[in-house]
């Protein structure tokens, strides 16, 4: 029995890891794009500001408007402000219910829907962490690069990026560990991840220990990640 449960939970863990890995793969870069969006200083109506001293005026509102930044911030607010479970349900059932078009009907459709929901959700959280990391790098670092004739992308990749990574390792590790456990939400659209795999024995054989046994898998998974994060932190401790 123990062996059967163990193999079935390993399969569940595999599904959880697949979701985890795919989410990171897409959400880590997408989060950076969203972070840049939220920091965008593009003001297309800036020309309206001339002669508008009154900061409360309607015209001034448009002059100061940063549409990309504003739009990104609204999206991040909505995604962070609603439960991931709800987003998952909307993304998976929404197309079929409202548009009579179940786009997830292909073979791995459930997993795909799940990855999409997780990527959207997590990239928004990551974007805020990235933004904090980028804004935490002193302005003087960028200016020093500019004065030396570096381009904007050279400044980002050669100067800001590594300093940002060093700053975001602790909050990122938090978020990524949360992601490990959030994979259990996938069961809401009938994906057999760890919890669902363990719970199945409660229904079929009336035993509860497989459900609690799943905790060992989560702990091991998170344990490995913790070691990895400590390693990265140590690797980056050569500078301050």
């Amino acid at each position, binding site marked *: 029995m123990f062996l059967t449960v163990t193999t079935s939970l390993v399969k569940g863990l595999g599904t959880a890891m697949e979701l985890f890995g795919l989410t990171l793969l897409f959400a880590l870069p997408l989060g950076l794009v969203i972070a840049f969006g939220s920091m965008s200083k593009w003001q297309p109506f800036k020309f309206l500001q001339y002669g508008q001293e009154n900061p409360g005026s309607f015209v001034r509102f448009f002059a100061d408007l940063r549409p990309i930044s504003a739009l990104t911030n609204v999206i991040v607010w909505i995604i962070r402000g609603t439960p991931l479970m709800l987003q998952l349900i909307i993304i998976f059932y929404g197309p079929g219910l409202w548009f009579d078009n179940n786009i997830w009907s292909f073979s791995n459709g459930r997993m795909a829907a799940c990855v999409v929901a997780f990527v959207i959700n997590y990239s928004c959280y990551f974007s805020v962490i990235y933004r904090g990391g980028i804004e935490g790098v002193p302005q003087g670092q960028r200016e020093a690069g500019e004065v030396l004739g570096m381009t904007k992308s050279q400044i980002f990749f050669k100067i800001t990026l590594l300093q940002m990574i*060093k700053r975001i390792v602790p909050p990122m590790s938090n978020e990524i560990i949360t992601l490990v456990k959030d994979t259990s939400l996938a069961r809401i659209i009938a994906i057999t991840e760890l919890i669902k795999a363990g719970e199945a024995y409660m229904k079929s054989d009336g035993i509860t220990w497989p459900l609690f046994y799943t905790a060992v898998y989560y702990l091991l998974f998170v344990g490995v990640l913790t070691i990895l994060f400590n390693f990265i932190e140590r690797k980056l401790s050569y500078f301050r």
Partner: protein
Amino acid sequence: MAVLEVNHLEKHFGSTRVLNDISFSLEKGQALSIIGSSGSGKTTLLRCLNFLETPNGGSICVNGKTLFDAADPSTQLEKEIRRKRLHFGLVFQNFNLFPQYTALQNVTLARELMSKETGESQDTIVKAGKELLEQMGLADRANHYPHQLSGGQQQRVAIARALAMHPDILCFDEPTSALDPELTGEVLRVIRNLAEQRTTMIIVTHEMAFARDVADQLIFMDQGFIVEQGDPHQVIDHPREERTRHFLAHYSET
């Protein structure tokens, strides 16, 4: 011919006028000291010269070429600013060394990134970097990271980093203000050596004796205006303007 000519430079932030009608010129191989109290516009002037701020009026000419003219938008193209910046070097008050790079890498990084355009070899760049560090008395610190260096050493690396780009004019923004008093000497000595080698420099400083001794020309600024400019000994020892006298009186007390 003057290497640098600044004509009627104006800068305001909102309704605050930070620079008013700033005009001066600098000959090749000369050093110019700028003194004045905090908020007098000295730092903003250096930032305008290095294109970190965009002036609202006036022009900046280097070697007879107009780099910036507020009245001529074709001199303000974003693309060209990067190249124009290279006429100037800037040493910051708080060093701004890149913490993830060693002293030597700090000095060589920008030139390595530019080697695609200039075709310089890695060896040439590293050799030049080592020579600059040696000139700064830091040959044995080449492989140290900034946090392993004292403030004075960090500032000397920053000076080497600026020199590596061969700027026409090297600007210092209060280079010793963030240093402990016992560390200012080593930085001032390095700047003095540069002056003796006829490096064209603009030095914003609160070290009055240094400003007087190292420079060929001195400017006293107050509230965004040039109040007095001329021979450093004359301005500091025998100021003509009441405001200069008033400002210098604070320093003679200490």
